[in-house]
């Protein structure tokens, strides 16, 4: 009896550790993300409080645009502030983006997907810290030949006061300057890893091509003045789009902006933690289900001794609560360690994010503890209910079979009905007209969740045949151990299905990510290969990061200067708000707007078009699906609002179809330039003269742009491989985050196998007695784990492909015309292989083997004599 109970404790320990591990990992990821982003947020709070410390009142502007560059104030308006009573002095500031600093080699400093580069005016002020930055070394820049840099970038480039510094402006091109000063942000080298280039105000205005304009400024009030009154006075003098707030409010608002940007990041990352917990809930559910059926006799004995159903339920739920709570506590601790680790690792990896002491908010602890405990508790509800239904008679029966067999038809009907509901919700969300009801995202989310439920309800029906098939294949290679594994995997379809379910969820997401990337890659390849008639394209470096990235017009002139160039077309891209009105609906969207030349259609030939693709002033052309979603036809009017110039009426004169035009709304370049107030190109397409290849043209154009490292010349093959690399980068990032969910799903396999080995102790003893050696015993357990894992992966890949297909179909209007299932690796790189579905099918099989190493080892180590006399 002692031996039996010791073994009970052993099984209990493994169960506790593995169940708790699922909670720890999931809660750890969620609370780690909270702690880390809270810490960054706290650091920024401090930074902005410092930045605005010397400012009584901050002047800014607001804009209707979410993605635009911001609006401006006239210098003349700003000058009126001086007349307001209580104003001691007003300091104007102009700030923008679109410059890069070159190093001594002529390459862009600190390029890549890091924090952005800003350009700003910096003028001597009586009080330090008017813009947060002060000159720490050297002098303020004066005149068009002088520049100041933040200390971070100055150190990175090795610049000293008096050195020559080259800065490239997206609008005015190359500037050769002298470094007059080095600025610091309070105690810090710079603001949160960003790069800053400072000029005096007139130079800033000319570099940004915003003559006579300001972003805002700072005001100091006379001693004793009432700030509220001064604010009211200033507001009365300025146009409506100006904002006037106290320095303290401005600091809080800026910090809040950062917080909301961070919260997107927090939500995005913690989603993966929730997914991990969701996967973990299946593990927990399955563990308790198995434990309850293992303890049927023990529970029945308790019933016989007078325990009520509620008490039995209580016993199981209490155990769940305990494990959940312990796991959650450890998980929060693990999360703090993750955050601490990120603080150490990221700066070492060159990612300069401001930081401070770890910020552990009550919210983090509450959410972490509640998530872990509640999810464990809820996952154990059904098993607990089943435990309470154990009959007293079960105690007297010799064998305690897995209860609730059969019900095939009922399960098929109920599962099928749920599936239909889920599909209906999904398709309605994706393709239907949701009208004034909840947003399509809600329908899609509910649909996906319900489809998951349906698949899990139906999966026990498939578990038998599918594991049989998988096992039969395996049996070919492994003989008897394969047959035993196959039969074991088939013996409880519900258990197999529940174990596989945890694998299914994570593999669904992996397959969905792979299918989406595969389809996007297919779309890009199609567009680049078939639909663009150009040999090379000139782009800003890092085009994929910012669609409105641009470069100065001189670049196009130089490209045109090459003898090998037959023709070019220039493309301008910016943001606009498009309003299309029909008698019944009004559609308002903030969208990219393209400035085009008449020959654009020669470079991007549409599959078909109506009207004209050469719009005149006040005329717009667009891709067919955009027109469709706005219910627009040729000759209809739309209103286009530009951030700087305001609203203008336009007439739709052309509708183009085909992938090359996907997402394009275009107006004449002259309209674009006058509305934006600046002239800068987003892309330049070039065709080679007869007989010259794309590579030859690239080789000819590149030297012409050698001094402009902010642009890159690419053939379409280059673009294709760059797009591929970008996509793979995104996919790898998502896969890295999903890895945790995959691991937890596989831990479920470990757990089930460990419990199964314990349950089958006698059987294993018998097999060992009649001639199963240790190696084959291990192989048998691992093979079963592999079969169950691959079954889960098959369901996951199926679901992932289906969801991917549905999404791509729903996004067809946005230009996602290709649906591709990436069965095979797209390339022989690591990233290419990771995107392949067959790889994941194979990998889960291997992972199944790896995650069953421990239970297999336990099984092989069983002492034969003890095992056959095990009760």
């Amino acid at each position, binding site marked *: 009896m002692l031996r039996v109970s010791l073994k009970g404790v052993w099984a209990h320990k493994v169960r506790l550790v593995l169940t708790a591990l699922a909670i720890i990992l999931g809660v750890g990821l969620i609370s780690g993300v909270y702690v880390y982003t809270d810490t960054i947020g706290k650091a920024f709070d401090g930074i902005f409080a410092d930045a605005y410390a010397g400012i009584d009142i901050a002047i800014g502007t607001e804009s209707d645009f979410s993605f635009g560059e911001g609006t401006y104030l006239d210098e003349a308006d700003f000058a009126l502030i001086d007349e307001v009573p209580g104003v001691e002095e007003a300091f104007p500031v102009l700030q923008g983006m679109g410059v890069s600093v070159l190093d001594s080699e002529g390459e862009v400093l600190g390029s890549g997907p890091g924090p952005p580069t800003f350009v700003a005016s910096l003028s001597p002020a009586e009080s330090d810290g008017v813009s947060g930055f002060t000159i720490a070394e050297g002098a303020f820049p004066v005149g068009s030949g002088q520049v100041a840099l933040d200390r971070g970038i100055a150190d990175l480039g090795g610049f000293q006061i008096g050195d020559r510094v080259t800065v490239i402006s997206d609008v005015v091109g190359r500037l050769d300057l002298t470094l007059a000063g080095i600025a610091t942000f309070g105690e810090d080298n710079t603001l949160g890893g960003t790069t800053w280039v400072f000029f005096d105000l007139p130079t800033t205005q000319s570099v940004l091509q915003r003559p006579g304009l300001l972003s805002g400024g700072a005001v100091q009030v006379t001693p004793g003045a009432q700030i509220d009154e001064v604010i009211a006075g200033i507001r009365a003098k300025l146009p409506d789009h100006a904002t006037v707030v106290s320095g303290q409010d401005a600091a809080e608002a800026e910090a809040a902006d950062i917080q909301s940007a961070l919260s997107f990041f927090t939500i995005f990352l913690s989603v993966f933690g929730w997914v991990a917990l969701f996967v973990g809930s299946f593990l927990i559910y399955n563990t308790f289900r198995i434990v309850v059926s293992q303890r049927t006799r023990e529970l029945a004995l308790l019933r016989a001794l007078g325990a009520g159903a509620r008490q039995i339920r209580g016993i199981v739920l209490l155990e769940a609560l305990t494990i959940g709570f312990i796991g959650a506590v450890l998980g929060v601790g693990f999360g703090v360690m993750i955050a601490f680790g990120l603080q150490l690792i990221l700066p070492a990896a060159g990612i300069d994010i401001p930081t401070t002491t770890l910020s552990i908010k009550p919210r983090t602890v509450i959410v972490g503890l509640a998530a872990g405990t509640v999810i464990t508790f809820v996952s154990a509800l059904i098993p607990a209910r089943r435990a309470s239904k154990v009959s007293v008679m079960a105690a007297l029966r010799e064998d305690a079979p897995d209860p609730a067999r059969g019900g095939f038809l009922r399960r098929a009907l109920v599962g099928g009905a749920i599936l239909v509901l889920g599909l209906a919700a999904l398709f309605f969300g994706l393709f239907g007209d949701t009208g004034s009801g909840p947003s399509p995202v809600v329908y899609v989310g509910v649909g996906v969740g319900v489809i998951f439920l349906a698949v899990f309800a139906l999966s026990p029906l498939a578990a038998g045949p599918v594991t049989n098939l998988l096992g039969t294949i395996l049996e070919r290679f492994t003989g008897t151990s394969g047959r035993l594994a196959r*039969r074991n995997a088939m*013996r409880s379809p519900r258990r197999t299905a529940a174990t596989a379910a945890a694998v299914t969820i994570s593999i669904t997401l992996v397959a969905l990510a792979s299918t989406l990337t595969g389809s996007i890659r297919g779309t890009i390849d199609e567009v680049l290969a078939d639909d663009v008639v150009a040999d090379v394209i000139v782009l800003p470096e890092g085009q994929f990061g910012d669609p409105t990235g641009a470069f100065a017009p001189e670049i196009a002139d130089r490209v045109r200067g090459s003898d090998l160039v037959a023709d070019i077309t220039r493309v301008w891209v910016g943001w606009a708000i498009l309003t299309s009105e029909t008698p019944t609906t009004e559609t308002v969207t903030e969208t990219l707007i393209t400035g085009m030349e008449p020959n654009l259609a020669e470079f991007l030939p549409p599959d078909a078009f109506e009207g004209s693709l050469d719009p005149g002033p006040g005329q717009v052309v667009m891709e067919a699906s955009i027109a469709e979603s706005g219910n627009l036809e040729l000759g209809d009017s739309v209103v286009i609002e530009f951030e700087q110039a305001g609203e203008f009426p336009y007439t739709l004169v052309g509708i183009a179809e085909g992938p090359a035009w996907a997402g394009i709304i275009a107006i004449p370049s002259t309209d674009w330039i006058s509305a934006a107030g600046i002239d800068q190109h987003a892309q330049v397409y070039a065709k080679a003269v007869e007989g010259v290849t794309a590579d030859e043209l690239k080789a000819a154009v590149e030297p012409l742009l050698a001094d402009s490292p902010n642009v890159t010349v690419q053939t379409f093959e280059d673009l294709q491989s760059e797009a591929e690399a970008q996509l793979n980068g995104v996919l790898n990032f998502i896969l890295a985050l999903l890895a945790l969910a995959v691991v937890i799903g596989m831990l479920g396999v470990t757990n089930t196998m460990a419990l199964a080995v314990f349950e089958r102790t006698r059987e294993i003893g018998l*097999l060992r*007695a009649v*001639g199963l*050696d240790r190696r084959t015993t291990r192989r048998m357990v691992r093979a079963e784990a592999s079969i169950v894992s691959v079954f889960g992966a098959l369901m996951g890949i199926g679901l992932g492909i289906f969801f991917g297909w549905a999404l791509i179909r729903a996004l067809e209007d946005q230009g996602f015309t290709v649906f591709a299932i990436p069965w095979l690796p797209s390339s022989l790189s690591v990233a290419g292989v990771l995107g392949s579905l067959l790889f994941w099918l194979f990998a889960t099989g291997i992972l199944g083997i790896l995650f069953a190493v421990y239970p297999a080892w336990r099984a092989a180590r069983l002492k034969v004599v003890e095992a056959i006399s095990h009760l």
Partner: protein
Amino acid sequence: MNSAAARAEGVTKVYGWGDTRVTALDEISVAFAKGEFTAVMGPSGSGKSTLMHCMAGLDSVTEGSVFIGDQDLSTLSDRRLTKLRRERIGFIFQAFNLVPTLSASENITLPLDLAGTKVDQSWFDSVVETLGVADRLKHRPSELSGGQQQRVAAARAMVSRPELIFADEPSGNLDSKASADLLDFLRSAVKDHAQTIVMVTHDANAAGYSDRIVFLADGRVVDSMEDPNPERILDRLKSLEY
């Protein structure tokens, strides 16, 4: 001694340490002759099951040597020992003899399948025919009666033509009819096919089917009896204060 199918020489088996130390076998020496049906009898705790486990290579001995034929088991690795068990020894346990996921037929051929040996179909047919399980071959163990399960186990023990079969209370859980059927079969296997069988039992009736009985008490051989019948056995057991 060379005619022995299996023998133990000065075997001691000790479980536990210190206060919980139990000597299950105390320098026991015993031999089981080829082609003989030997019964091992003794009261609970006499060491009869331990003796069987040690001689069948299921458990290791503390001291002494165990031989199957001329093979000293103590020199074998677990892998070689497993191979020896499936090739040279057959087992019939008291209960839980069959793998629940395999059909009767698959259970019978399990040791051969594990060894990768081809099944001798005519021998298989004759064994299952004799045991009366030929029409139950496709069934799972849960679909068989207790007597049928034990006869399937006996068929498994026979089908690989092992040098000897160890049976641990094979009829212990059966009613008298099923018990008699099984023991008759074991008896005839010895008579017709010169099969060596060692059966552990505390049932005088069952032991009555054997050629020879070895009596154990306190981990030692205390007596033996040739050509036993139930009356003599009961008398002997009485004299051993059983």
